């Protein structure tokens, strides 16, 4: 059990602030764009501050709770902020703020900006709800809402390709959501309880067949969002279709919401003991290992930069699922910390990809030759984030993989160490050639496509730089109290008590 419960309205505020903001933004936008931007930034910063405000309490083991609403005796909503939620919530809010700062200059000449920002804020509110959900139903409601509200952001460009990708996305996600719903109802029916707390609501004296059915409903449902192979089909299409800032969010935290759901289910619905008795986790681990390698291999062959990055996300999320499925404390810490670190690294990569595409017209790996001469800052950031993604110490990506590796050895499954290293190796194979070409490739001849082949303006470089710096800082300062690592350890401690 956690140490202390604090009833608090702050979690509710973190969820409602962006949602209310989404209602205000379109009204403001009519007058002046400046007012709108200030309002957006204020709301988003406030949410981020709130999300970070929870960190010290979570480290001390406090749990904040807020009851929202008892719709019927069987349906109630409630928020509960534990260490795991704080970790994910802070990641979401901070990444969102960075992306918003980037979007404002980046999206200026795009159409329907009021719609874009409204839905962006709505999604933020729902994501905070996912992070702080205190029971399965609250989780499901916010999870479904943000999945659906994402749709207008994915099809923002309104091109046929975007619409097709959007349809594919929504079909995949809703099938996943329905499976989760069945799992939630089944859990509630069997256990009569659905609060998400360490120890789990299901116990091993319940019918094994039913427990297995629930488990696979959840894994398949969240697996769609977490892009577990073979449920990953929507990811490579949705990312290139979405506007660059939103791709960063999509990859950084939305796909991660699926793995976050898996973590909730494994540690707080079933609990470690029930699952180790049930003996289903080795299958999930195998699936995750397959995801890591399969997606990485596919990434090597992609020419589109965003498409390649999307496959890389699938592969990296495989690490997270692998870490969770080993049911050991070390591996779990590695997995949870990798969610956060991956969010900022992938954020940096997508933000740079957006700059390349907007300011140099480069969308494909084959066109990138010589780009570093024209856009030195962008390519430098891209390189650092890539190295982080591969897992080079001391960058952020290394931390998660280190703990994951230790956890694998702890669990006595050295085979997965090969998967871990192999995945990183292939990551090097699909990321390093981009950098090599950019620095050492021959730039295209005089008939260049883009007239202003200069570095992107500072206003868009700055947010990309923040994510890059975070990639470095999160790696160097991993042991400082308040870092993602310390939060992940706090969360995992409560699961394995």
């Amino acid at each position, binding site marked *: 059990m956690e140490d202390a419960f604090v009833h608090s309205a702050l979690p509710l505020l973190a969820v409602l602030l962006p949602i209310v903001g989404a209602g205000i933004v379109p009204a403001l936008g009519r007058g002046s764009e400046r007012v709108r931007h200030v309002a957006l930034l204020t709301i988003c910063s406030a949410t981020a501050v709130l999300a970070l405000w929870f960190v010290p309490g979570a480290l001390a083991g406090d749990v904040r709770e807020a009851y929202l609403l008892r719709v019927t005796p069987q349906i109630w909503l409630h928020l509960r902020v534990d260490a795991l939620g704080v970790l994910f919530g802070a990641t979401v809010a901070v990444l969102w703020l960075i992306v918003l700062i980037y979007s404002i200059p980046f999206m200026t000449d795009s159409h329907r900006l009021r719609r874009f920002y409204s839905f962006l804020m709505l999604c933020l509110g729902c994501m905070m709800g996912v992070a702080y959900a205190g029971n399965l*139903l609250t989780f499901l409601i916010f999870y*479904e809402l943000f999945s659906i509200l994402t*749709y207008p952001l994915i099809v923002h460009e309104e091109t046929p390709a975007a619409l097709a990708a959007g349809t594919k996305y929504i079909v995949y996600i809703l099938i996943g959501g329905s499976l989760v*719903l*069945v799992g939630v*109802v089944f859990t*509630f029916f069997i256990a009569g309880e659905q609060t998400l707390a360490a120890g789990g609501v299901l116990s091993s004296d319940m019918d094994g067949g039913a427990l297995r059915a629930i488990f696979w409903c959840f894994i398949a449902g969240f697996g769609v969002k977490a892009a577990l192979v073979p449920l990953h089909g929507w990811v490579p299409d949705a990312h290139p279709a979405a506007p660059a800032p939103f791709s960063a969010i999509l990859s950084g935290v939305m796909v991660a919401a699926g793995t976050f759901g898996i973590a909730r289910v494994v540690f707080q619905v079933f609990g470690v003991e029930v699952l180790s008795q049930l003996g289903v986790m080795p299958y999930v681990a195998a699936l995750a290992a397959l995801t890591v390698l399969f997606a990485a291999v596919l990434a090597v062959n992609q020419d589109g930069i965003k498409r390649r990055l999307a496959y890389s996300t699938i592969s990296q999320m495989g690490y997270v699922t692998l870490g969770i499925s080993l049911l050991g404390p070390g591996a779990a810490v590695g997995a949870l910390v990798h969610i956060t670190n991956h969010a900022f690294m992938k954020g940096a990569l997508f933000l740079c990809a957006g700059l390349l595409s907007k300011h140099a017209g480069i969308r494909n790996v084959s066109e990138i030759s010589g780009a570093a001469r024209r856009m030195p800052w962008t390519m430098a950031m891209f390189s650092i984030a890539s190295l982080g993604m591969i897992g080079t110490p001391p960058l952020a990506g290394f931390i998660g993989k280190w703990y994951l590796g230790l956890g694998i050895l702890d669990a006595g499954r050295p085979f997965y160490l090969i998967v871990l290293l192999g995945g990183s190796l292939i990551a090097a194979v699909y990321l390093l050639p981009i950098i090599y070409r950019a620095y050492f490739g021959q730039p295209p001849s005089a008939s260049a496509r883009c007239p202003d082949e200069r570095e992107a303006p500072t206003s868009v470089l700055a947010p990309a730089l923040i994510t890059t710096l975070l990639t470095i800082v999160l790696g160097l300062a991993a042991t400082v109290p308040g870092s993602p690592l310390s939060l992940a350890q706090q969360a995992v401690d409560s699961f394995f008590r």
Partner: protein
Amino acid sequence: MYAWPHWLALVVMTPLAGAALTPIAALLDRRSPPWWALATMTFTSLAATMLVLRVFAEGPFSYLPGGWAAPYGVELRFDEFSAVVGVICLIGWMAILFSSRYTRSLPEFASDRSPYYYALLLLNLGGMIGFAVTGDLFNLFVFLEILSLSGYALVAVGGERIAEMAAFKYLLMGAVSSVLVLFAIGFLYGMTGTLNIADVTARLGALEGPTAPAAVALALLAVGFVTKAAIFPLHVWLPDAHAAAPSPVSAVLSGLVVKLGVIGMIRTYRIYYGAGLFDLTVLNHVLMWLGAISIVMGAFFAIFQEDVKLMLAYSTISNIGYIIMGLGLATTYGVIGASVHIFNHALIKATLFLAVGAIIYRTGYRTLSDLRGVGRAMPLTSVALSIGAISIVGIPPTAGFLCKWYITLGAFEANQPLFGFVLVFGALLIFVYYIRMVNAFYFREPIHAEVTEAREVPVSMLLPTLVLASLCLIMGVLGRIPLTFIEPGVVRLLAPLGG
């Protein structure tokens, strides 16, 4: 206030009398019928509110017209399921308000026809109210005929050739199902010598001798009511009828009239559960399967429709499938979910039909490809339509989610998890259609100038649409109200099962 006994008589008599007087009102002032109908429904709503409050406070109660006791007098009985009267009044009122502008400016409503339109609408609403509150089998049949016959006429009122064909098809299926119900009532009367539902239940329980006629009566009632409820494969009359009718009428037909088939089914159940004559497992299984097939087939047909109203009509079949499946599960959660969905689906479907009606009224188009870009031209109506669509798919926290949650719980309770899956995934199929609609309304370039130049509809049409749409959201959050209201009724309905 609500204890006054005569509200129960008034709630039935007011709309019927109002219907009879509408042509006279039209003689006095040509423009008065909509306002006359609205006044009638306002008073009926008042009576319905009193009745619902009373049943909530006191439980079921009866009214004996003229003070004649049950075997001789014709009993009216109001229980928790009769509270559907409240929804009938709400949606009836909204549909009439919506019609007031609609009938004035459409060519098919030449001014001489409009009084009959309102008279028929009132007759239809009165028939439904009577059907829901009667405690007498023969009256049940009479009210069934009133609501069915007025329904056929209302479908044809649009006046196009397709509407006449649709009405004729509706008439054929409807008449056959009415006759089946009449036969069954005859059987029951022959066996028990009474027509009062409570008496029939008691005497059927004490019946000696062969039970076969009772079984035949049950089968006839089930087929009759299931046809009225448009369960696959007896649904063939529904899509054309609901799509061809004027939009406010579609809202009433799709939101309410088919539900009365379900209410009939519940009444049948009460007789047979109460009598305890035989085990109803077989019937329950049949209903469960029919419901499941309807869910899937209705949704499947809906996906391929280009015409928005046809799609909504098919989605009704799918939703009635939920309700019938919930009834067939025969567990507390399942039947609660089904009963609450009778109420919520009425709200949702009325929202959808009124919003689509408003769009058709302004643009004159009704297929997805013609309506491209309408979301920007008519933002409020389109938002209402979107809310309705999200509710019908059952995305939490809208009204439609309650039914999904409870019927799925009921499926687990009945140890039939497969049906939970069918329900959840049937709803997904409908969502596929909704994605096509959103894409067309918001994300594609318009192809008709009429669509881009369309303005929002006048307040008398916009208000009902928006009120119903917000109810779709509010009833999702306040789900406790219908739930706690219906629970005692459901427990009483299922009680004899346990012993």
